[in-house]
């Protein structure tokens, strides 16, 4: 069986750098939009700006996932299989809750809820690794 030639593996530092770059762009855009009086058009452009570094990060993430060995792919799948429904349940619960209890937008706006996603993903990752270690 012929093996396809292997590409040079992505450096962890490079991936971390691109990930940090994405978050920095997001924070800068957030601060500018929130704290300054930018024109509406500029504000909209800034709201979409973090998508570009995110796409670079996503491309790297896709490559790392494809090149990971089978156990790592399985662990990633199990982590996502935990995080995705858990996030859905969280959103559904908050949706129901806000019908009866006023939820403060300072804590539960769309600007804050995304942070639960990586937290749930890492929880799923820890649970999955516990099974195979």
């Amino acid at each position, binding site marked *: 069986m012929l093996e396809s030639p292997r590409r040079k593996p992505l450096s962890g530092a490079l991936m971390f750098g691109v990930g940090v770059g994405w978050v920095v762009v997001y924070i800068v855009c957030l601060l500018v939009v929130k704290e300054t009086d930018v024109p509406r058009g500029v504000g909209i452009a800034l709201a979409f700006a973090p998508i570009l570094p995110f796409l670079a990060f996503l491309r790297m993430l896709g490559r790392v996932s494809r090149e990971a060995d089978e156990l790592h792919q399985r662990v990633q799948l199990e982590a996502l299989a935990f995080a995705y429904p858990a996030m859905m349940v969280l959103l559904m619960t908050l949706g129901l809750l806000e019908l009866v209890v006023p939820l403060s937008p300072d804590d539960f706006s769309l600007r804050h809820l995304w942070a639960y996603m990586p937290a749930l993903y890492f929880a799923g990752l820890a649970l999955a690794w516990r099974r195979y*270690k």
Partner: protein
Amino acid sequence: MTNRLRVLRAERGWSQQELAERVGVSRQTINAVETERYEPSLSLAFKLAAIFATTIEELFEPGR
């Protein structure tokens, strides 16, 4: 499924890392297969059998 991976690896004096490099997976994968927490794909099972010059049936046994 049970397997004889640890025994065969020990006979050759290879570390988990060495075996992992030979078959192109991570050390964690070899460890998970050896401890029978993870059942490898057919492709990896073939590679492991080839490395130890044996057959999949000799290496893995259905059971438990």
